[in-house]
């Protein structure tokens, strides 16, 4: 499908967001200053599992400059449990009530004259704990009779389910071979450079709570926050801020908002709580999935995939906040880009004494991509087939779209062979293989990785509840307001915050496309939760699709009114009015024109010049709902379309492994992405490079570790390792565009693909590098010691080199 040539969509428009960011004049949460504002600090539990016997805050309260001290007892009075996207009664308060369940859990909080004093105050709170047995191994925690993380739950196995689609048994019975792998995907953490925070101000006379926070879903589930804060929804206002990165970690932020809110109530002052880095590493909502996979791929002798079984144990930590949404993510594309007729997915969600999972870019489909691609590489190796060919053989054909995958989700469009071919060409696959052979002859361990994988976008909320029998919410809209002011300026109002993606630029380019104006002339503003329209905000790579849809919808409405005004002024028919860079004109008679300023002026100030019966003003609002969401069937054999804007990518990294030190050097990295029509190529490349860099982190550097007592061992940036510019190569990025048939302009989301595919690709590359030793890669991250140990074991085992 060829891409339609457009004027502004597809251009490298300079970002509207940049000037304030570049000059240090953005408005991040920690930049908020209110009169009399107090600062909060939090006392955190040193114990991973313990009863709280006694808390004595008397010394803390006596310190000068302290305005309020609260504990779990106050949390029970002043707040409700935090929102959780699950049906199980896993109760979490912002401050631990009766019991602490992870090391780092908040036990008390203070508001003081400044952050220094607040931290002094926290040290004066005395807590007596009665330790309980600590559970850090989900396999142990699952066993009957294990100590319970939550006394009100029957066990730590908080959820388990098997979903089966298509004829799985038949697919396995007819296979010539079953490829099996056991895989480990360690827990990582989103770690944006800006931590989570909130400023809250409470007015007891009016009952109004004002919040400034880098939280996301302010116009979607603001009512959940109101419920947590025990204020009426109509009395809660959340102000959107500039956000210094999120990657999924700032969706709700119930904890920081509740702590600031409760302290605001108690102290009578505005209170700011900014997490510090230790708070963010140990106690936030930014931890990713922590999985043990047992996976099987049924294959024919010719390499055809006939069935797939995925069994996964996921260590959720102490609470079940985001539920199994990360497994819904996996289901959306569980079979990858391949024609697998049936698959089974068994998930066991386990609670342990660690901080709870949130979501991190990729949100569970990253781990699933890793699992499938290991199986595919293994199938090629065991069957003696070429890794490229086995993928080609099983790809869903370009003429098969929209494609319904076995679980019922739709893949809207795609051309997987084209993406693969482009990647192979860019990488110079055959030259790489030659170079590898020469390197191997010198005794060097050079590897070429390949991953062909999906990158879903635009989630449907059904993925949070189709695991259950009862139905849940089905709305996940995004809205914009669009106005033409009395001086002819276009203003777009958004109802979700800026996260570091480029929403202002996307909407400006859409307005530009619809009207013909230069995007630099468009102004974008944000609206708070009391004045906002339903908008779920960034997440699941949805914003490009949802914002363009909302802008197009609002533009249609606005154009309809503007056309009537222009037609009235130009004495023409509204259907003959066209819009361009400077205003409206009559089709075929460009000299019969009226500029945008005049249209705006008339609309706002010259009522008697308007068509009869027309209201003054020129503003349209549009709520764009998910363009393709369908209900799951009652028997859950068909989950409906819930993540249908399906992008795809092929990654080819080239690595060299030092066999003595286990260090991996990335020599080259080629990535070709297809995310439908591209709105802003430079922006997209930035998202891809950033995502791949986080994927490199996942593959080689990042893991959250705990000791046997549940103590976090990666509680600072000295231990949780984010890649720097020297760990990341220049990434060669290519594009294919197969537009979506379901969205405006044919766009799809592309913000997560880099992190969703790179770990799988790098695992493939390192395994390829170590193929002469017969090493298989089953665990991420591939730290130097893990690799050195595998290499040493392989050498000691005297395994013969494998022909590749």
């Amino acid at each position, binding site marked *: 499908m060829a891409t339609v040539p457009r004027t502004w969509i597809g251009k490298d428009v300079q970002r509207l967001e940049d000037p304030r960011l570049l000059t240090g004049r953005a408005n991040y949460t920690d930049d908020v200053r209110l009169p009399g504002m107090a600062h909060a600090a939090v006392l955190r539990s040193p114990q991973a599992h313990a009863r709280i016997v006694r808390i004595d805050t008397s010394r803390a309260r006596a310190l000068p400059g302290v305005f309020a001290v609260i504990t779990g007892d106050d949390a029970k009075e002043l707040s409700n449990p935090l929102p959780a996207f699950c049906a199980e009664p896993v109760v979490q308060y912002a401050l631990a009530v009766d019991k602490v369940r992870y090391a780092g859990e908040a036990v008390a909080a203070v508001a003081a004259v400044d952050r220094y004093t607040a931290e002094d105050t926290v040290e004066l709170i005395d807590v007596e704990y009665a330790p309980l047995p600590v559970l850090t191994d989900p396999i142990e925690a699952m066993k009957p009779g294990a100590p319970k993380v939550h006394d009100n739950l029957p066990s730590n196995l908080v959820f388990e389910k098997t979903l089966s689609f298509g004829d799985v048994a038949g697919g396995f019975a007819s296979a010539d071979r079953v490829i099996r792998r056991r895989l480990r995907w360690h827990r990582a953490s989103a770690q944006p450079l800006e931590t989570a925070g909130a400023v809250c101000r409470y007015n007891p006379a009016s009952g109004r709570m004002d919040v400034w926070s880098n939280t996301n879903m302010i116009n979607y589930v603001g009512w959940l926050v109101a419920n947590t804060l025990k204020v009426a929804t109509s009395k809660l206002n959340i102000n959107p801020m500039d956000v210094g990165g999120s990657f999924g970690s700032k969706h709700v932020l119930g904890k920081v908002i509740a702590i600031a809110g409760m302290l605001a109530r108690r102290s009578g002052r505005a209170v700011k709580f900014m997490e510090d880095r230790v708070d963010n590493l140990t106690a936030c909502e930014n931890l990713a999935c922590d999985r043990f996979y047992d996976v099987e791929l049924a294959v024919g002798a010719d390499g055809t995939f006939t069935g797939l079984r995925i069994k996964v144990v996921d260590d959720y930590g102490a609470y079940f906040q985001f539920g199994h949404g990360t497994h819904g993510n996996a289901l959306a594309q569980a079979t990858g880009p391949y024609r697998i007729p049936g698959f089974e997915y068994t998930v066991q969600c386990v609670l342990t004494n660690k901080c709870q999972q949130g979501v991190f870019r990729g949100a569970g489909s990253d781990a699933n991509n890793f699992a499938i691609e290991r199986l595919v590489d293994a199938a090629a190796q065991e069957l003696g087939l070429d890794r490229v060919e086995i993928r080609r053989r099983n790809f869903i054909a370009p003429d098969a779209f929209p494609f319904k995958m076995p679980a019922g989700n739709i893949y809207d469009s795609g051309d997987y062979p084209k993406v693969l071919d482009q990647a192979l060409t860019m990488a110079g696959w055959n030259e790489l293989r030659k170079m590898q052979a020469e390197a191997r002859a010198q005794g060097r361990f050079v590897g070429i990785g390949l991953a062909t994988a999906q990158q879903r976008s635009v989630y449907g909320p059904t993925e949070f509840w189709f695991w259950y029998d009862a139905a849940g919410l089905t709305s996940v809209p995004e809205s914009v307001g669009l106005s033409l002011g009395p001086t002819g300026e276009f203003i777009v109002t958004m109802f979700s915050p800026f996260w570091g993606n480029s929403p202002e630029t996307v909407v400006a380019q859409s307005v530009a496309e619809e009207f013909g104006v230069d995007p630099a002339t468009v102004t974008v503003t944000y609206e708070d939760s009391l004045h906002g329209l339903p908008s779920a905000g960034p997440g699941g790579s949805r914003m490009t699709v949802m914002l363009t849809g909302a802008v197009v919808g609002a533009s249609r409405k606005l154009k309809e009114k503007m056309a009537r005004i222009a037609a009235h002024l130009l004495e023409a028919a509204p259907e003959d009015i066209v819009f361009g860079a400077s205003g409206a004109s009559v089709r075929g008679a460009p000299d019969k024109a009226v500029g945008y300023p005049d249209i705006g002026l008339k609309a706002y100030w010259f009522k008697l010049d308007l068509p009869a019966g027309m209201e003054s003003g020129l503003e349209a609002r549009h709520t764009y709902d998910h363009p393709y969401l369908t209900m799951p069937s009652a028997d859950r054999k068909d989950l409906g379309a819930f993540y249908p804007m399906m992008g795809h990518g092929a990654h080819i990294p080239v690595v060299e492994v030092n066999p003595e*030190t286990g260090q991996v050097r990335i020599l080259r990295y080629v990535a070709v992405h297809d995310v439908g029509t591209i709105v802003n190529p430079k922006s997209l490349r930035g998202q891809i490079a950033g995502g791949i860099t986080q994927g490199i982190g996942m593959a080689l550097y990042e893991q959250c570790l705990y000791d046997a007592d549940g103590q976090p061992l*990666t509680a600072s940036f000295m231990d949780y390792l984010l*890649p720097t510019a020297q760990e990341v190569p220049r990434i060669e990025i290519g594009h294919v565009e197969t537009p979506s048939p379901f969205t405006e302009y044919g766009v799809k989301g592309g913000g997560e693909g880099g992190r969703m595919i790179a770990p799988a690709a790098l695992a493939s590359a390192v395994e390829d590098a170590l193929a002469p030793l017969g090493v298989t890669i089953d665990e991420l991250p591939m730290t130097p010691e893990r690799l050195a140990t595998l290499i040493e074991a392989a050498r000691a085992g005297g395994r013969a080199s494998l022909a590749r």
Partner: protein
Amino acid sequence: MKPPRFEYAAPHKTDEAVALLSQHGDRAKVLAGGQSLVPLLNFRLARPEVLVDVNRVAELAYVRPLESGVAIGALTRQHTVERADVIRARLPIVAAACRLIGHLPIRHRGTIGGSLAHADPASELPAVMVALEAELTVTRRGSRRTLPAEQFFTGMLTTALAPDELLTEVRVPGLPPRTGSAFIEIARRAGDFALVGIAALVTLDDGGRVTRARLALCGAGPMPVRAREAERVLVGERPDGRVLDEAAEKIAAATDPPSDIHASAAFRKKLARHLGRQAIELAVRRAGGGS
């Protein structure tokens, strides 16, 4: 993460500084570059009652050539040491080690004296000074003493400094002719603390035999590890593959490394063997030898 309260003094002269240390004893801690101490203060892992900030004691910042070696004032910034002509000419290993300390903004503030006095087992300069057999001058009110670097480091994050003493100078003797040196390390990321690092200095005679060898490691134990047995293996020999392998074995045997989340003790030993061999080879080549 904000520091706890402390009393603060910022003397301008060495005499004033040591007088303060004498007055406050173990209630006081010296603040030099702050690149190690301020994080500890921010984490509230360090809680000195008195902070004696020596950054304004300008007379302690200098790099002076001696007859063959160099004298470096304790307050000299790592970046200054790295770029000093006389260091590059006479002690390139010191410049090489400084280059690996963190990143430039850290080296702009971090001092040579601060790094040595902090004695982090993974840091580069203590190992280099042990390998160079540097002499450290320690000053207290009314007197001063000098001790060899190896005696200065007494344990993990522990030195021979008494609470009322200030490290004021590092004297590094010159190197004999035909000495090649190398400092290399393995770290998880660029600029990180070394998992293991090694300073190697090898002197050759005209026949290509080793007449002198000095080997010291960081990250290999609670203090810098001087690998004397490995040095003995090298002396008198032409450093061929067999000799290098044996020296590398001795290096690994000399280590007593820690285990942490980045590397186990066993892995560090393995890295020490691997790096040791590389460092010696490199030093030999730079001495004008090698096959």
